[in-house]
């Protein structure tokens, strides 16, 4: 087959897939008029759910960053026994169906479980409470954050830290003044992706904390109770939020060479 034809076929197959992704999103955006959107934005329930989503996703990301960035550094820079196992465990949530994750979290953090029981004693309730949303979001987003930060650290030449040490800087100083600024963009991009993953989570939250409703559950609730027209404006608003985040990540990530 001649090269030109093979290119046409490859491009055709690719175009089908691109259209399959863009089509439904465009259709959704066109479904709602600006008046509908303005009305939806004035809906206090939708506003509350979006605010709740943003706050919980941010909390889950900050918590993930606090615990995940040091781990990512260890995974990138140090070899220790069980490193591959730790790496595997961190990646595990990616392959677990989200309702399964929700059930597992329910069993682990529910009041009748040991951990959940202890935590409820100090006033931390998960099931049907806001911390449950944060826990579910953390569980599903942590692989994205850790792998993003790990790759960012791997991209920084470890010799630079050694140079900083010979210039009189401590190990922590060298990390803070050299490695962290150089890995910063990659870590931030990974964190934003993890945040977006938290915003889009539905499957595990629906099991752990149906109420108060995050945006994805709010849309599902409107759809089942009042049908498609009631769900569309909220869906469009969530889509716009997601697109804005996506654009931000694209700007932060350096372009991959071809």
């Amino acid at each position: 087959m001649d090269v030109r034809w093979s290119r046409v076929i490859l491009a055709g197959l690719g175009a089908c897939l691109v259209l399959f992704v863009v089509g439904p999103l465009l259709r959704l955006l066109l479904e709602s008029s600006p008046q509908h959107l303005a009305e939806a934005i004035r809906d206090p329930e939708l506003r509350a759910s979006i605010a709740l989503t943003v706050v919980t996703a941010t909390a889950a990301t900050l918590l993930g960053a606090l615990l995940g960035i040091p781990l990512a550094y260890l995974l990138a820079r140090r070899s220790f026994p069980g490193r591959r196992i730790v790496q595997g465990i961190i990646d595990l949530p990616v392959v677990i169906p989200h309702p399964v994750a929700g059930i597992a979290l329910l069993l682990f953090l529910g009041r009748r479980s040991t951990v959940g029981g202890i935590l409820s004693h100090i006033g931390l309730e998960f099931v049907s409470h806001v911390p449950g949303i944060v826990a579910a979001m953390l569980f599903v987003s942590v692989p994205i954050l850790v792998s993003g930060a790990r790759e960012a650290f791997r991209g920084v030449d470890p010799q630079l830290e050694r140079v900083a040490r010979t210039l009189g800087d401590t190990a922590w100083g060298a990390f803070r003044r050299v490695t962290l600024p150089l890995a910063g963009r990659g870590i931030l991009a990974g964190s934003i992706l993890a945040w977006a993953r938290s915003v889009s989570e539905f499957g595990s939250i629906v099991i752990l904390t149906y109420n108060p409703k995050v945006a994805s559950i709010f849309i599902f609730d409107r759809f089942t109770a009042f049908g498609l027209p009631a769900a569309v404006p909220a869906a469009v608003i969530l889509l716009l939020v997601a697109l804005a985040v996506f654009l931000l990540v694209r700007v932060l990530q350096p372009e991959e060479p071809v």
Partner: protein
Amino acid sequence: MNLQVKVGSFHLRDISLEVPSGGYALIIGPTGSGKTTLLEAIAGHARLLGGRVFMHNEDVTNLPPERRGIGFVYQQYHLFPHLTVRNNISYGLTHRGVRNGAAAARAEQLADLLGITPLLDRPVRGLSGGEQQRVALARALAPRPTILLLDEPFAAVDPSTRQVLRRELRQLHEREGITTLQVTHDFDEALRLGDLVAVLSEGRIAQSGAPEQVFRYPNSAFVARFVGSGNVIAGTVERSDASEQGAPFRGRFQGDNLSLDVVAEREGPAHAVIRPEDIVLSLTAHPDSARNHKEALVTRLERLGPVTQVHLDVGRPLIASVTTASADEMALHPGLRVIIALKATAILLV
């Protein structure tokens, strides 16, 4: 300054090296001989399995790298890519709480010394090899280290820049008076820069001393070959006159199709080291004080500016060196038969 390093790792064994305060020492050795590992051990990056490191009579073996007062210039420079040239140079000052004004003044002073003032506010991306090397040197010198470690600092720059940098480095060393330890695989660098040279072979110091001394009197065939002392020939030494007692004695060196009168200190297997400039060439035999005269065939001429290397065949290959002027005068050319004269005392036996 006192520097003793003993590293019991895979690479280095029983290294003992003392660099005088303010001195310039070079460690030379082939690739894989453990040169960089030695510097890393001194800097505190590599773990010592035994031995101690002393600086100015202070045992620094257990100090972390940041408390050893060293400056380290790496072969690949490793400038901080997120900082400007100025901030690279002042890195070692600002984080220690040196006032911004004082740090800036020191950065500017070093930039001026190294001729990189116009680069101060540039990012480090896009600097040439020579420029990066100067920035790396200024950065290492800024905190006034007590010892400067240089890992093949001229390996990645072109030959003309290398010459200029060598000269600048020597001037800087004299001006700042910092004890310097440089790693290189180029003995020429040791001859031009160092007060002291240590030849490293398979993790051990094969010989150390003044560069000229090591070059003239290598203590082994390995050192002689590595520093380019000249022709190295394996063979055996026999006493010429059995009635003669003591050492040194007159002897006969036999090896590889070559028999030479020598002055030896011991009998048995030895390597003869013959410096190319000690071989005297002439077109006709005439009496002189040299005890060895041989006929030789010129096989190749290598003109190296003012000096010409003459490749000879005396039953085995031998290299002599003459001034290009006398090579022209004698009309040396491949195929010409010449007479070589060599003093017995000029043959070094190791």
